[in-house]
């Protein structure tokens, strides 16, 4: 099946710093989403971004489908950004609507 690898696995930032999270996938996809899982376990959908670039406040995401990767940018990080960030994909052929989740990036933002 498709492999979805995220890097870095862990990241510690000082409040106000910027960061880039990466998601690599091994097959062509027609659906890619980024999620934030807060320390209480709730998963929040950040972006639906099978290709191109989107921005939402301090967050932005870029997917280069032909090169099989996506990036999530966090600017001016805040302590509330702490948690785990997952990318998830649906493969282009035979994937139906089933999301396969990546390995995750654990982010901690400190004061």
């Amino acid at each position, binding site marked *: 099946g498709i492999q979805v690898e995220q890097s870095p696995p862990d990241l510690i930032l000082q409040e106000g710093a910027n960061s880039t999270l990466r998601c690599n996938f091994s097959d062509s996809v027609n659906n890619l989403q980024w999620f934030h899982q807060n320390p209480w376990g709730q998963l929040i959908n950040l972006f639906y971004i099978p290709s191109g670039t989107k921005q939402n406040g301090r967050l932005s995401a870029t997917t280069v489908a032909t090169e099989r990767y996506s990036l999530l940018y966090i600017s001016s990080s805040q302590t509330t950004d702490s948690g785990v960030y997952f990318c*998830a994909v649906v493969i282009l052929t035979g994937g139906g609507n089933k999301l396969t989740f990546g390995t995750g990036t654990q982010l901690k933002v400190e004061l």
Partner: protein
Amino acid sequence: SAVISQKPSRDICQRGTSLTIQCQVDSQVTMMFWYRQQPGQSLTLIATANQGSEATYESGFVIDKFPISRPNLTFSTLTVSNMSPEDSSIYLCSVGTTGSGKLFFGSGTQLSVL
């Protein structure tokens, strides 16, 4: 986005018992899925809950262990049967609508099996 209510939010169960988790959505949705998140791990799809028919299970998951019901377009249940400590995980309900592409998640059920 849909409002998804999942309950219970957490439970502690004894080995050999079963627990049924409910997922209620405030609007009709075409797609409902159940995921498992083992401690410190990513999410793994258990099955797709099909309205009015048997669920579609992923490799490694079977109906006898994880029976699923979906009687209508707003409600589904997942039962974790004959539990063992290895079943201790977060179980999450996820929903989506055809054409939108986005999936949304309930708040999850934290299950601990003693």
